[in-house]
């Protein structure tokens, strides 16, 4: 039956890996666009309008690709994991129904907003953007709810192997929703913010000046400068929740083999074959972070049989990558805040701009590493401690062909999207400054 478990998991991971960065733009970009439009309405400076229009054009493209890559995810839930859906669909499905509602609202108002430029009154236009921001948040909340549920299932009983007494709203508001949601929401702002800021940091390095370029850099940086420090606090909250609910995952995050009182934390380094190379050991820190008590007992991997442990190397190394990059992002943010506070201007150094350019792709790496941490850290379970991933997978023998096909499609899509989006990024604001109507018809 489970001949192609690994291929199915990789196919799912690839599909999620493509979709999640797009979700970040769905979460964060509308707020940035509205902020720029608000500046235009307040100041009357056409540079802000040009920026908002340019961003909304990119927002629509990324939303469209997000829509279709999200659709394939809902196909894959059934195509790859039919037993998971058969058995548990009735428990967590309502969250997706509500997510569908959010998605509808988002799709409707993004069309009204983007195609309504210069056709709706300025007030009606900016108002039409607000539902996009709200539905971006609620949509993320409901999807995250399902993920939180997979990691800490609740809202049902099992009697004689059957799922009974389903309580859908209890499943919906499981204990993981809040910290996962805030963590992902902030991550959305960090990824979208740093990637957009990176475009204008490149322009600044090339010597482009003026309100358009400056606002394009400062608006996203102001957002990430708030999100990055907050993300560290939320990360701590997430880790403490994991310590209580998924101790095995915490042990994998830290590569902790044996149950230990007053466990230390090894920062950095690479985990290979059960050992950490090159990390810095800080005594008692893990216990302190996880339970706010330096002598607390931390459950090690040895507490569960080997077949119930996740692959530690992937989980721990991904976690370290996420934390390391997150720290870098916070440092860049601090640099920005410090300069704003001291001189109320951007840091003058070219190294700051270079750091912002690097932060964009790095934030995507951190995002994916974070998802690998939580999802691989959940293994071998698809529904934590209730269903193993191998029990859920399809028996279809076409999986390798499907995996190869979707890989080819996504590689081609990424290449085309990259080339065309880079072209948009390189264009100056002239098109938006001079054109009258909100048409996006730069066709040959």
């Amino acid at each position, binding site marked *: 039956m489970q001949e192609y478990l690994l291929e199915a998991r990789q196919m799912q991971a690839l599909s999620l890996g493509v979709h999640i960065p797009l979700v970040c733009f769905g979460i964060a970009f509308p707020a940035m666009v509205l902020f720029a439009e608000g500046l235009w309405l307040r100041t009357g400076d056409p540079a802000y309008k040009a920026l908002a229009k340019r961003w909304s054009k990119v927002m*629509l*493209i990324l*939303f*469209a*690709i997000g*829509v*279709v890559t*999200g*659709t*394939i995810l*809902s*196909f894959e839930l*059934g*195509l790859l994991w*039919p*037993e998971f*859906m*058969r*058995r*548990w*669909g*009735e428990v967590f*499905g*309502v969250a*997706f*129904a509500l997510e*569908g*509602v959010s998605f*509808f609202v988002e*799709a*409707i108002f*993004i*069309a*009204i907003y983007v*195609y*309504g430029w210069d056709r709706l009154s300025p007030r009606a236009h900016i108002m039409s953007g607000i*539902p996009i921001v709200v539905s971006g948040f609620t949509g993320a909340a409901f999807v995250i709810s399902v993920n939180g549920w997979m990691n800490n299932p609740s809202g049902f009983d099992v009697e004689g192997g059957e799922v009974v*007494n*389903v309580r*859908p709203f209890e499943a919906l508001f499981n204990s993981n929703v809040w910290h996962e949601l805030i963590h992902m929401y902030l991550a959305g702002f960090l990824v979208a913010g740093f990637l957009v800021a990176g475009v204008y940091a490149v322009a600044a390095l090339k010597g482009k000046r003026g309100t358009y370029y400056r606002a394009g850099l400062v608006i996203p940086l102001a957002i990430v400068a708030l999100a990055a420090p907050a993300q560290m606090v939320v990360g701590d909250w997430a880790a403490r929740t994991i310590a209580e609910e998924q101790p095995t995952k915490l042990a994998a995050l830290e590569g902790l083999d044996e149950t230990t009182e007053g466990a230390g934390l090894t920062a950095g380094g690479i985990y290979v074959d059960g050992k950490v190379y090159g990390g810095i050991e800080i005594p008692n820190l893990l216990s302190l972070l996880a339970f706010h008590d330096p002598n607390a007992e931390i459950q090690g991997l040895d507490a569960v049989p080997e077949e119930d442990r996740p692959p530690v190397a992937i989980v721990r190394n991904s976690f370290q990558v996420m934390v390391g990059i997150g720290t870098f992002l916070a440092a860049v943010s601090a640099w920005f805040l410090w300069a704003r506070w001291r001189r109320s201007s951007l840091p003058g150094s070219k190294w700051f701009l270079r750091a912002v350019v690097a932060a964009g792709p790095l934030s995507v790496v951190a995002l994916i590493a974070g998802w690998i941490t939580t999802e691989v850290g959940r293994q071998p379970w698809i529904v934590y401690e209730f269903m193993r991933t191998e029990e859920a997978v*399809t028996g*279809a*023998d*076409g999986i390798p062909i*499907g995996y190869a*096909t*979707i890989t080819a*499609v996504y590689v081609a899509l990424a290449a*085309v*999207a990259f080339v*065309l989006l880079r*072209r*948009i990024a390189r264009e100056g604001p002239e098109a938006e400054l001079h054109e009258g*109507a909100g*048409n*996006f*018809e*730069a*066709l*040959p």
Partner: protein
Amino acid sequence: MAELAAIVLVVGLTAYAVLGGADFGAGFWDLTAGGAERGSRVRGMVKRSMGPVWEANHVWLIFVLVVMWTCFPPAFAAIMETLYVPIFLAGMGIILRGAAFALRGEAATIGEARALGATFALSSVLTPFFLGAAIGAVAAGEVPAGEPGDAIASWTGAVPLLAGVTAVMTGAFLAAVFMASDSVRAELPDLVAAFRTRALGAGVVAGALAIGGLFIVKADVPDLFDGLTEGAGLVAVLASGAGGVATLWLVWTGRFAVARYSAAVAVGSILVGLAVAQSPDFLPGELTFADAAAGDSTLLAALVSVAVGLAVILPSLALLFRLTLAGKLDPDFHPIGSSKDER
């Protein structure tokens, strides 16, 4: 409550078939518009018509999937296990169609625009074919509730293939009617004439497929045929026929704005008819809606969520369509792919 959930499912599927189907149909006309010069005006209209609405229309598919796996999980799992080939191919088509449509506006050279345009158009035809074939396979009773059916034979029988082709042609018919009406609004008489001809042609072909298809259904799946020719199933079939004839007459006489609605009835009734004909079975001969249904607490939660959702979505959709039909969201019209600047 299972019945109510089934109704919600069928309504969602019908909405997708009409609204999403028309967007795929627009791609059909893009594909068949002819050479770059000759087809550029039709292609420009396709882009202009679809632009503001296709994403919202697409969400009906998500709606259908979500309602299905929440309210009828065993049926969803069984369909996905047996029909994974056409459904996966439809998924790839959805990605290519949407991404190519979104990106084609950024093409800088004619070569790029043509490559993206061809990807968009071809996947617009293949996607509804595979989705239609999957629906046809379910209606034909090819999906077992237990061990999965054959991955290929399940959807390559006459009825599923017919359903696939019908899905393509009904979409093309809807798109032509809708775009004829859009062309009137855009004051482009040459395109009104072009889509009028297409609407009439596609209407005749789709009608012939539907009528001819009934004979294939009679031969291959007699139970389904019986369901379609008695009671509520017969009403739906007659409604579809009447809608089709009315649309042809309205298009012939140039009343495109009204023809939108009769065309929607013609196509929507086919799906309603299929659902009625096979009820109370979800998977004919294998699984009823009642047996496939989730527990009452889930059905209730899902129905309440859908009701609350629709209270938000329907006014929003009404706003979108009102703005669209009032021309408030119309992008400027530009021919696509022509080497001459015809602006």
